[in-house]
């Protein structure tokens, strides 16, 4: 493949390297496993040529060159380590440290700091500086999430460039010049948008740190677990860092296929609710209008008895189950297995605004989104709904794709004329709108469709058969009743027992759902907190959150992603999986073995639905109802968990005016 027109061959530390023309030396050096220190350069932000620490020696050039902004050229002979380079880097590090406070012992970055690492690796270990250091403010409140230590800043401008290039927010600027330069917002307003936390990870030093993690721990204390974020349907990979059983921070994982290495602030910061005092930690049973605490054995007996009696007296139509997007694939599969095993088809995952989560026949991959020439967004803004997907769209726009948010499907189609491939990103709320776009783009050759659902594992729930009209693997079945129909049945007295696992229908339609839930004979709700729905339940089961259980989820493009438990759940709670196993014993239903369950989940997750498109009629269960204000409208609402997260209070206060 050594095509001389596009490839160049050079020598790095005596090793011949062939790289595409235009490759920067810092990237070329990685191919021969030579690390070149960088501060301002970042693979996703590009070169800036500010910090000068990446000096290399190129034969024939009189002075040291910066590897981050020098393209590889044919015949170039590069030395990444020799006496000249070492002296140059040592000098640069000495200059970078001239005004650095060296307060590593109290710095949150200490232990994972590039400045520390490179000072140890390349620095002189001493300084000729005799004058006092320039002093700047410490602990500057930059916004609801970020604290700035101006003394530690090395002015690499990664944060400023992230704001400009990646997040397209343009809030951060470099204020003043020379020794007085500081990072600030251009307007002086608090720094806040949906992606602020990323700058703490980009910052190579301890200048930008998270308020929620401030002085809580040192990096080497943390137990790190890689897991999947379940706050929206994108399924970003993240590290959950836990100390003494408390989740202290989440960090993004370099996973270009899904999150591109970014996290939104909801995914990053909404972890404080796990140790909330308001969590339910014992099954609660409503007796004479008030909740009393009962044991798990009694809870299973009551649940099983209610279901058995309803089945015997009124048949399978009288029972139903709603399993929200909090459920893992395994739990969703078991819930539908259990419900269908007793003869009922009253199953749904939809308890909120979303009506559909699987795009169907034309469903695209995130790579297809990267290739798209035109991206059409349909429905609610994605910046709130699927923030990291929005970053990927912005990336495509930077590459030259057209971002289209048209008033009507026909108008959007007209704007896309002649462009291919095309990506349609629908919010999954209004089936009529989805179907209209599906129809309008039917004639286009390359169309990839996406549904940015509001719930974490919505597509997983659909793939596992948590829909009235589809069984596992989107197999068409005799339709049962969906969530809205079930609630209507409940009001009419036809539905007697409803099991709601990880869903909060009462938050979306307070009056209608409340009336329906009150009319039910027996309502079981598995929840972490006393939600609007749980408050109306007969039996409340304390559940575990996504960081407390293991399993798999499906993201919006159908990638099977693992959840690994990183937290010890409070005593008295059970994962929904264990609840369903307990219920199955009560109902004498045989469940698949753990191996069979895993095989079934993998098999059904891999099935690509071809029988429908956007807004298929089988997903339609009535017109969308406008939810009350502040429900899933803001990024810091989370899935109802943000209200119980004291660390998020300041963020929410700014967003929703709490």
């Amino acid at each position, binding site marked *: 493949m050594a095509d001389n027109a596009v490839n160049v061959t050079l020598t790095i530390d005596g090793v011949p390297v062939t790289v595409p023309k235009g490759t920067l030396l810092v990237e070329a050096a990685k191919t021969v496993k030579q690390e070149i220190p960088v501060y301002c350069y970042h693979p996703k932000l590009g070169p800036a040529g500010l910090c000068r620490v990446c000096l290399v020696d190129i034969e024939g050039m009189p002075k040291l060159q910066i590897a981050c902004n020098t393209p590889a050229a044919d015949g170039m002979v590069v030395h990444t380590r020799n006496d000249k380079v070492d002296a140059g880097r040592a000098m640069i590090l000495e200059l970078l440290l001239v005004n650095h406070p060296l307060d590593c*012992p109290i710095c949150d970055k*200490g232990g994972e700091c590039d400045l520390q690492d490179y000072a140890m690796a390349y620095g002189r270990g001493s300084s000729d500086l005799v004058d006092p250091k320039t002093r700047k403010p410490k602990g500057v409140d930059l916004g609801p999430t970020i604290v700035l230590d101006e003394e530690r800043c090395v002015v690499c401008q990664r944060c400023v460039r992230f704001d400009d290039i990646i997040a397209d927010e343009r809030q951060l600027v470099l204020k003043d010049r020379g020794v007085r330069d500081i990072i600030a917002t251009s307007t002086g307003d608090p720094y806040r948008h949906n992606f602020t936390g990323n700058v703490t990870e980009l910052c190579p030093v301890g200048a930008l740190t998270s308020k929620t993690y401030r002085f809580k721990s040192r990096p080497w204390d943390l137990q790190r677990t890689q897991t999947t974020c379940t706050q929206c349907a994108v399924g970003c990979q993240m590290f959950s860092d836990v100390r003494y059983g408390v989740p202290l921070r989440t960090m993004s994982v370099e996973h270009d296929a899904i999150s591109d290495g970014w996290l939104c602030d909801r995914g990053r910061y909404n972890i404080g609710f796990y140790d909330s005092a308001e969590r339910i930690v014992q099954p609660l049973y409503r007796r004479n209008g008030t909740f009393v605490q009962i044991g798990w054995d009694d809870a299973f007996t009551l649940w099983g008895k209610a279901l058995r009696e309803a089945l015997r007296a009124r048949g399978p139509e009288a029972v139903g189950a709603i399993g929200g997007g909090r459920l893992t694939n395994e739990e969703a599969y078991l819930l539908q297995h259990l419900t269908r095993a007793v003869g009922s088809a009253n199953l749904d995952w939809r308890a909120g605004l979303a009506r559909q989560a699987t795009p169907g026949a034309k469903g695209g991959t995130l790579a297809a989104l990267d290739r798209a020439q035109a991206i059409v967004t349909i429905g609610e803004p994605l910046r709130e709904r699927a923030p990291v997907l929005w970053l990927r769209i912005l990336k495509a726009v930077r590459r030259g794709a057209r971002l289209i948010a048209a008033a009507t499907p026909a108008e959007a189609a007209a704007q896309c004329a002649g462009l291919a491939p095309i990506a349609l990103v629908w919010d999954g709320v209004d089936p009529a709108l989805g179907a209209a776009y599906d129809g309008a783009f039917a004639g286009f050759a390359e169309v990839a469709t996406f549904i940015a659902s509001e719930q974490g594992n919505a597509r997983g729930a659909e793939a596992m058969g948590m829909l009235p009209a589809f069984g596992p693997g989107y197999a068409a079945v005799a339709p049962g009743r969906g969530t809205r129909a079930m609630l209507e049945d409940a009001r009419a007295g036809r539905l007697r027992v409803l099991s709601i696992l990880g869903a909060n229908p009462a938050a979306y339609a307070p009056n209608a759902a409340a009336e329906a839930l009150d009319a039910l004979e027996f309502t079981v709700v598995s929840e972490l907190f006393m939600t609007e729905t749980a408050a109306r339940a007969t039996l409340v089961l304390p559940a575990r959150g996504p960081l407390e259980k293991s399993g798999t989820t499906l993201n919006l493009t159908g990638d099977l992603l693992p959840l690994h438990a990183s937290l010890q759940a409070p005593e008295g709670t059970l994962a929904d999986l264990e609840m369903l196993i307990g219920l199955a014993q009560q109902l004498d239903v045989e469940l698949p073995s753990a191996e069979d369950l895993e095989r079934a989940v993998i098999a059904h997750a891999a099935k690509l639905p071809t029988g429908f498109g956007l807004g298929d009629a089988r997903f339609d269960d009535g017109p969308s109802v406008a939810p009350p204000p502040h429900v899933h409208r803001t990024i810091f609402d989370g899935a109802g968990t943000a209200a119980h997260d004291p660390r998020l209070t300041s963020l929410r206060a700014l967003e929703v005016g709490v």
Partner: protein
Amino acid sequence: MRKRLYNVGAILKGLSITFGFMFRKRPTIEYPSVKKQHAPRFHGLHELRRYGDGKERCIGCELCSSACPANAITVIGAENAPDDRKSPGERHAARYEIDELRCIFCGMCEEACPTDAIVLTPRFEMADYRRGSFIYAKDRLLVPPDAGVGEAPDERPGGIPGDLGRVAEIKSTTDVARGFSATHRGEILKTQRRGLAG
């Protein structure tokens, strides 16, 4: 007969050694009424220092707990409230606990401390009846507010006080009446640190 006389001589010789010790200085002491003077570098119970103005030296950096080979130290840092500063700078130790049963009294914590906050005193009497009481928290480790030594750095850096290495000269501020001037250890510390820096 002759053989027996020989034996008496041997016995007397042996006993002379025994009785000879009666006139030497006794190596034992009447503990606990008399207490042994330990060397100034003796590694005994820990102590958390303060500055002369009463502020805690500890900045909650956890370097002692990282250096501890026995995993005996637990530190949890927190931010200083602006109106109630526990230590100079931004950070202080919200919790500081040493499990003295785990501790091997190696003194690595003292070496690691960037502010000379944690020191090992010559105090050695820690016996107790319950295991739990060997976990020393800040209430027992911190010296009284008026027992601070040294000049605090200004409010800004959490970093290095100007008197690093010198505070060890006044080792054991609460047990200072033990007889040893303890400057020796301070000199050693200073030389060591100078050696590291050079």
